[in-house]
């Protein structure tokens, strides 16, 4: 059993342990601290040894007007005693902090599920803002579900009274009261939360105490209140996991750590150029604190300067990294072309969000695949790797650094808003197991009478990396087409043909160094292959698993290497009768697969800003086989 600190809250009655999984959604006003509440519940759940996945879903506005439907911020967690791959389809428990949160979320709740609502917020004003003609807590319209209506606001104010906070400040502790109740409900430890509160409010101990009091009051409410059947306490057993040290990690953290690890494996200092943009900024924030790892971060004046500075740093011998989201990546396009032309290593992280243009800054989408693979002027190929989950981001970042430095090329890492913000348990790897790929800067002066040729290549077709400052090797590079060995300007037709071919071939050579395409679930030659990439791994995997349990002949193939693709992928796809490609876009990987392999890949598309539900995948499998 997981020795999850075994933080049992004193000698309470044993809660019956059960197997399975449960989905809980916290929803409230964007000022209610729902993301924080969800994050802390996640931490406590992870410490209890459950596998889990989360889905933070929040508005683009920092503080949308209070009580409005568009100002609702939600956090969903799916945790269980089995392997959890998605944040769950339908929540069983909805915690609604106001009428707007109820209205926008209640339809997702599974029939018979439990609603916990803060009755104190269901006044006439808030009801009107949410567009309720009558109070849903009173009018019987929620009869499909179990309803627990509690005046959380009043109970919180009462709980924090001893600390002399103003009314507004007191109400800010509501989320901790709610968290306390949720922790009791699922028999989760409170200690990690109280530790965290003490650390967070170290400078204002009275706030720490008030929040802890609210947390304890919510917990005590669960323990003492006489409430109905639906509201029984549950304990979901820990999930069977490989032994080891675990922590929770978000995609943004994992990318950052992976980049640091990758730079270490390459033996390079890292230079990160970034410009604030949702949802990519978190990577800049994480890296900015890691100076002791030879990381220099630079908040540039714009997206273009961010990538250009990163390329400059690579030119000078650092690992240049830049990160953004779709609109920012678009701005970086020209500079990526220069990095391709001058054949310098560079990592570009795209935390995708809904597009086009500003689109849906806080919602997830996978619609930048074309942009990554094709989105530059000229024939400008570069390797593209897609991250499938927060934990996977660590390995993908290392892999990107390996490819960039070994092949002297920019590499794009595609992640998305969902992965960036979502958390999952991560077995901390032993970084020693990763094979180092130290960079060997070229520093041999040419012999008397000879010249240094910056574009003469090795067997992989990579050119030498020379740091300015190296005697005897001064040379010039730039974006103009250059002679295939000396690098001098050369516009001749035959040279441009040769250089275009070499640039394409070099990138294709990356395929020699990546693993062959595996099958995540199932066998070659089944009736249907469901092929996915990126953050849709979870729902696709679960959907295929359920279909297989029903005896259906279906396999799951998940593609990490978007460009170049694994060499066996085409042959593998051709063993299936049918191919279904679910994507959170209008069919981009589908097009790529058709183009590369002339296979009849069929799309399943969704662009609602939310991940696939498992049921949607199941239904599509059913329809494909039908």
């Amino acid at each position, binding site marked *: 059993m997981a020795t999850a600190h075994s933080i049992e809250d004193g000698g309470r009655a044993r809660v019956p342990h059960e197997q399975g999984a449960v989905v809980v959604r916290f929803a409230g006003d964007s000022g209610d601290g729902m993301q924080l509440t969800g994050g802390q519940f996640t931490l406590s759940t992870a410490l209890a*040894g459950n596998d889990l996945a989360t889905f933070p879903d929040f508005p683009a506005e920092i503080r949308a007007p209070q009580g409005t439907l568009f100002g609702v911020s939600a956090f969903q967690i799916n945790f269980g005693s089995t392997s959890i791959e998605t944040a769950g389809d339908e929540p069983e428990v909805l915690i609604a902090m106001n009428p707007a949160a109820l209205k926008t979320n209640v339809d997702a709740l599974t029939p018979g599920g439990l609603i916990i609502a803060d009755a104190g917020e269901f006044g006439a004003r808030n009801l009107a803002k949410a567009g309720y003609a009558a109070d849903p807590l009173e009018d019987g319209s929620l009869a499909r579900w179990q309803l627990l209506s509690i005046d959380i606001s009043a109970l919180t104010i009462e709980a924090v009274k001893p600390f002399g906070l103003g009314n507004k400040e007191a109400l800010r502790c509501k989320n901790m009261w709610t968290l306390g109740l949720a922790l009791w409900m699922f028999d989760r430890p409170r200690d990690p939360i109280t530790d965290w509160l003490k650390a967070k409010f170290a400078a204002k101990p009275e706030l720490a105490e008030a929040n802890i009091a609210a947390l304890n009051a919510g917990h005590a409410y669960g323990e003492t209140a006489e409430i109905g059947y639906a509201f029984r306490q549950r304990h979901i057993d820990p999930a069977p996991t490989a032994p080891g040290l675990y*922590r929770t990690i978000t995609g943004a953290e994992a990318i950052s750590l992976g980049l640091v690890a990758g730079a270490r494996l390459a033996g390079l200092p890292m230079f990160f150029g970034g410009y604030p943009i949702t949802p990519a900024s978190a990577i800049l924030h994480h890296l900015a604190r890691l100076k002791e790892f030879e990381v220099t971060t630079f908040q540039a004046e714009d997206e273009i300067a961010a990538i250009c500075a990163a390329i400059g740093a690579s030119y000078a011998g650092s690992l240049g990294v830049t990160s953004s989201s779709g609109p920012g990546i678009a701005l970086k396009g020209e500079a990526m072309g220069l990095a391709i032309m001058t054949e310098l290593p560079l990592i570009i992280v795209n935390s995708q969000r809904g597009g086009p243009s500003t689109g849906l800054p806080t919602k997830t989408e996978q619609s930048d695949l074309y942009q990554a693979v094709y989105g530059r002027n000229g024939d400008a190929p570069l390797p593209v790797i897609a991250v499938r989950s927060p934990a996977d981001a660590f390995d993908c970042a290392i892999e990107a650094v390996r490819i960039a430095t070994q092949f002297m090329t920019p590499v794009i890492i595609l992640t998305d808003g969902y992965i960036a913000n979502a958390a999952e348990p991560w077995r901390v*790897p*032993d970084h020693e197991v990763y094979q180092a790929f130290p960079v060997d800067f070229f520093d041999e002066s040419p012999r008397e009478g000879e010249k240094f040729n910056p574009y003469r290549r090795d067997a992989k077709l990579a050119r030498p990396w020379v740091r300015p400052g190296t005697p005897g090797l001064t040379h010039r590079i730039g974006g103009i087409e250059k002679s295939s060995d000396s690098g001098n300007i050369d516009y001749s037709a035959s040279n441009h043909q040769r250089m275009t071919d070499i640039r394409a071939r070099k990138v294709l050579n990356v395929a020699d160094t990546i693993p062959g395409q595996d099958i995540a679930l199932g066998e070659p030659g089944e009736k249907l292959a469901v092929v996915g990439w990126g953050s849709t791994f979870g729902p696709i995997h679960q959907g295929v698993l359920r279909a297989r349990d029903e005896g259906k002949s279906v396999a799951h193939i998940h593609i990490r290497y978007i460009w170049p693709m694994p060499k066996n992928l085409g042959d593998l796809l051709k063993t299936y009768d049918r191919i279904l490609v679910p994507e959170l876009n209008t069919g981009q990987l589908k097009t790529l697969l058709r183009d590369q392999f002339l296979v009849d890949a069929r799309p399943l598309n969704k662009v609602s800003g939310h991940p696939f539900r498992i049921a949607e995948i199941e239904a599509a499998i059913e329809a494909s086989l039908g």
Partner: protein
Amino acid sequence: MNDMTPIPTTIKDWETDQEVRWCPGCGDYAVLKAVQRTMPELGVRPENTVFVSGIGCSSRFPYYMETYGFHTIHGRAPAFATGIKLANPELDVWIITGDGDALSIGGNHTMHVLRRNLDCQILLFNNEIYGLTKGQYSPTSRMGTRSPSTPFGSVDSPVSPCAYALGAGARFVARGIDVHKKLPEVLKAAHRHKGASFVEIFQNCIVYNDEVFGAFTEKKAAADNQIWLEAGEPMLFAGGAKGIILDKERLRLDVVDVTDGDWRGAGVIVHEPANRAVAHMLVEMPLGAFPMALGVLYDDPHPTFDEVVRMQNAQAAKGKSADLQALIAKGQTWQVEKEPRAE
């Protein structure tokens, strides 16, 4: 690599074998020669020198310098230079740019490299025209400039490069003329200044904008229309017959006649390069009523961006070990000893 006394170089050490591809008679040739002539006097080595450029006629410059060179993309040279200098502060970084490159498409980067005060030299070749794209008017073109894109004359006000630089927070602002013998002295001063040194070089485009600076560069007009400023020296021109005074009532500069060399009597002011207020007035002097202010107009060093970044990085890293394993295992963790059994 960087010895205390670098091995001396000659002009030959700074010339490449590449054929120079500017139009015959272009002012760029003169600037190239001036830079190549200046380098040996700076006590620097070619391998520690990087020339970074954007796009435009002037941006071909790095190909002709036997140093490390990076011909980048339009307007972005300052951003590349920032990455280069932060990655390796030992490098001596020169940015070569033009009026379109630095003030139109790259105006944003010019502003930020100056306010950050990256230690580098910025040579802005101003010819008041887009040469490489065949003669369109540029952001420094005077109103009424007729060009293929403004056949009836341009209608927008030009930007003054040095005023822009000062406004952006530059700590060193100078002017030179492509063919003028004092250009190397200006370049040396720019190199001496630690921080972003901004040098506007009036450069004649013989094909699309010939003689646009003739009013003050032509031989017979030069004496009356150029004032070369020297630190600690009175602001005199026209062979000492005229000088610049500060009208303290109206807070503006004026031109006065100086008789018998009595500049003090005439109230002529002495050039103090660290005086920012006067620098603002000098760069704004309208030609005609005033001479063109040339030489080092403003020079007041300030900690450089690269220096401060390095210092902060070192400070933040102080006492912390770069233990990667500890980093990835940070935060609240839990140990799973063996797989749990269902109860």
